[in-house]
């Protein structure tokens, strides 16, 4: 009985974490290049239930009754790398990657990767993210100055008529190992090396978040109901405990 109480509690906590992930997806429904996240869950490790008894000679024995799992837990947080809708903006500093790959970003903390194509030119004339981190080319930072920026499908950046660099677009063998660090950036663990990749780039457009409102809403409904069911389980077991404590042992007057 007590065991069941804790099992249902893990159910409530996991549903709560799911709701937190859904609310984060919804909060970022307008964030360019955002990839929605999903929680995968798994049961607690199985344990063997045993029954203690005595045999014919009154010697204690143990009998296996079967297996049981005592709850659920969060296994992984998975970014879903499906492409988002590409929206025409007409802004020359908006680019979208039409396919696999990430832009390389140089931050104070090291290399990061992003699919947010909303760029700007910083005070030094370098291509940067909205937060001021440098967008990297294959030969370092890209300085466009105050000239007109033209980025072609292969990622070559021209400022006016001058060739100033090529965007470093990379992909990863297993992008699921990338860690989100916030600010639309991903960090690659040391053993995951970026591989240059040829991805078509479209200037004047932005990749929107790949959050599907209907899916998220339906997930939200499912989460609420699963949460409710677990709450009911706790209440039911509380009642049963109440009965055994208060009624089973009461002395009938």
């Amino acid at each position, binding site marked *: 009985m007590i065991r069941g109480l804790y099992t249902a509690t893990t159910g409530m906590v996991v549903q709560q974490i799911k709701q937190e992930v859904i609310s984060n997806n919804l909060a970022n429904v307008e964030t360019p290049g955002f990839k929605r996240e999903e929680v995968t869950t798994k049961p607690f490790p199985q344990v063997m239930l045993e029954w203690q008894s005595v045999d014919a000679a009154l010697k204690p024995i143990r009998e296996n009754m079967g297996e049981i799992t005592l709850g659920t837990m969060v296994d992984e947080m998975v970014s879903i790398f499906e492409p988002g809708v590409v929206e025409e903006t007409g802004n020359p500093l908006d680019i979208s990657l039409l396919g696999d790959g990430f832009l390389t970003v140089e931050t104070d903390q090291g290399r990061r990767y992003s699919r947010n194509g909303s760029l700007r030119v910083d005070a030094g004339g370098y291509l940067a993210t909205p937060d001021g981190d440098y967008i990297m080319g294959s030969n370092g930072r890209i300085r466009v100055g105050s000239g007109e920026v033209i980025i072609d499908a292969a990622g070559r950046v021209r400022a006016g008529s001058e060739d100033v660099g090529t965007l470093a677009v990379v992909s990863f063998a297993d992008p699921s190992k990338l860690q989100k660090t916030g600010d639309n950036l991903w960090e690659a663990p040391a053993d995951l090396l970026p591989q240059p990749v040829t991805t078509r780039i479209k200037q004047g457009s932005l990749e929107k978040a790949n959050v599907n409102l209907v899916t998220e809403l339906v997930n939200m409904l499912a989460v609420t109901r699963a949460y*409710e069911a677990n709450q009911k389980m706790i209440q039911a077991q509380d009642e049963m405990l109440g009965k055994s404590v208060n009624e089973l042992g009461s002395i009938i007057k």
Partner: protein
Amino acid sequence: MLRALMNAASGVKAQSVAIDTIANNIANVNTNGYKKERPVFAELVHQSLQQQGLPVQEGNVASPPQIGTGSRVASSIKVFSPGQITQTGRVYDLAVAGKGMFQVELPDGEKALTRDGAFRINDQREIVTTSGYRMHPAITLPEGYTDILIDPSGNVSVVDNEGKSTALGRITLVNVINLGGLKPLGDNLLGITSASGPPAVGFPGEDGLGSIRQGFLELSNVDMAEEMSNLIITQRAFEINSKAIQTADEMWSMANNLRK
């Protein structure tokens, strides 16, 4: 549960900033030389979920589970696409065809930039903006002229009633590296900041600067259809985030009602 509430609240807050921006763009649809703004959203930091007491897989997983904490408006980008240039026939209406902004002097001596080319003459016969800020470098018109001519390279001259023309000076234009870093000062003026980079002063038609068209005005670059569709998207995003707040609230209420 608090996190689910705060995530959704951050979304509501970010979307309301977006609605404010759209409202400001729409309000300035008829402001000469106005450049529309567009909010850019970003994720907030991610936190590790591997805390004591949470049912989360521990140990040697490839990527330890992390959870997002909502969104924010990273910056508001001014879009410097050219506005429509319309003919007015007024001699003091100037439009810049291409890059560059007019420079005006603020009362405290600081300089500001503007694309609003609707100038006029003040009581000291100086060329000023509609709000009364003096063009820099200052150009003062003499008395008794019949016509004022401003050529595409910015040379200002007046013609008197005998047909004699007198050169008065040349209008300069200013460009900065990062137009998006300019700070709106009100009255259609933009101020230089450390983010915009130093001003590069030049003459119209030179160094990549645009030429000047007398008798024309640049309207705002706000596109109503675009703003309205953005308004719909933003309003719906706002709505779904408030739904997420409601849901978190309901779930919290269930947790509170565990003990009747």
